[in-house]
């Protein structure tokens, strides 16, 4: 503790963290939030009722944390993945039998993805039944709906990447639905798959969608979603 105190008084510490330790007054507590890049999305004070577990069940928070876990495990998985046939599948085998903790990494990514779909859906239900879409929060509700759709798309594009029987045919079922879109169905399916059937280019397309395009939209919209909560007057 003494050592920690000494560190906190050094010039280097002070240059990095602007909040002086110890934190003893409400002004200090406010400054912790105020001076931090990662925390400043929070207001300095919150309603006590709004932060109770039974008020929101922390579903939005849980969804965000799952997204965080998915990003981290996803980046680590990218290190072992080649979007090619049959390399993609062989990489899965490698993850399972060769890479240290590779299986654990993949499990973590997959189960988080499933749980995120559930938690985002439950979050939507919670917000709905609380009536938290009422003005002035209409637009944040729409952003939330888009985030739900992106979550589903992320999960769906990720489903193909192992390129085993399960993912191939699951994605086939989904891609066939695109064909039924009136007028532009065939073109849409071709655009999505990068061909008439699922193949090498589909894998690359889904890989880029899964790792770059959709996460980019997701991050931007999450930031907007959070910012908008505060602008609309906090949690409800």
């Amino acid at each position, binding site marked *: 503790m003494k050592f920690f105190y000494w560190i906190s008084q050094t010039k280097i510490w002070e240059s990095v963290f602007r909040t002086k330790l110890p934190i003893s007054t409400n002004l200090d507590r406010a400054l912790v939030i105020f001076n931090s890049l990662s925390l400043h999305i929070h207001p300095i004070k919150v309603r006590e009722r709004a932060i109770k577990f039974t008020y929101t069940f922390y579903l939005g928070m849980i969804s965000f944390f799952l997204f965080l876990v998915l990003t981290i495990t996803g980046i680590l998985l990218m290190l072992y993945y080649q979007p090619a046939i049959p390399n993609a599948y062989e990489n899965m085998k490698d993850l399972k039998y060769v890479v240290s903790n590779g299986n654990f990494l993949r499990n973590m990514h997959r189960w988080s993805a499933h749980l995120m779909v559930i938690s985002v859906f439950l979050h939507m239900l919670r917000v709905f039944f609380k009536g938290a879409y009422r003005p002035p929060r209409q637009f944040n509700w729409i952003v939330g709906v888009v985030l739900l759709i992106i979550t589903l798309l992320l999960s769906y594009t990720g489903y193909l990447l192992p390129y085993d029987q399960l993912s191939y*045919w699951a994605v086939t079922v989904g891609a066939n639905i695109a064909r039924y879109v009136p007028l532009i169905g065939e073109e849409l399916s071709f655009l999505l798959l990068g061909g008439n059937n699922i193949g090498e280019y589909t894998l690359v397309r889904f890989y880029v969608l899964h790792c770059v395009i959709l996460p980019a939209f997701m991050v931007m919209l999450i930031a907007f979603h959070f910012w908008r909560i505060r602008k609309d007057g906090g949690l409800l």
Partner: protein
Amino acid sequence: MMNEELFQVEESSDSKVVTRRVAVFPQKTPVKFEQQRPPEKIVMTFPSLIIREVICFQVVVIVLVIISLLFDAPLEELANPQNTPNPAKAPWYFLGLQELLHVFPPVVAGVLIPFCVIVALVVIPYFEINIKREGLWKENQKKTFIIFSSIIFMLVLILIFFDVFSIAVPTLLIYALAVLPYFVKKKSPFINWLSQLSLAEWIMTWFALVSLILIFIGTYFRGPGWSWVYPW
């Protein structure tokens, strides 16, 4: 001369008195309620909220680690376009859609219904009825009952015509609960609770229930050729 006047007007455009809003009473808000609401307790974000976030994150990670250690992600053999598994199933969250695809024409189940669901979700906050959310039986009970019942009747008829009992049954269940306060006039906490639920809440409950049931059926009760099988 003209300019000078304009200039003077501009100079004095700042209001001298700052009006202060004391209270807002929207038309339908009971004034009594607004006045009686006690001031809410406010706490510092750090540490009250931050500690909850940290604990929540830890719980999420711990739960994920336990699940990941206990259950392995499925991995079948290399994808083979020549070998179609029977049945080929979509990811579980799309199994409800696949279930619909099995009974309705593809354009309806694959395109129209998902599109309508998304549109319905997006427009929720723009309708007065969803914003007010008054109890279904608040006014004009007889008219409500006739309109509500006939719409449900039509819907169930269409569903039975397409043999979709997996949707027809929960629809009737929700309907039975929704019209219960119309028939049972005896006051009990359960009936009171039912009667104050709005149309929006009933529809969302119905949507969530139907999605859940369809996903459940698609996951556990569908075998070769999408026929009905039992998981045991």
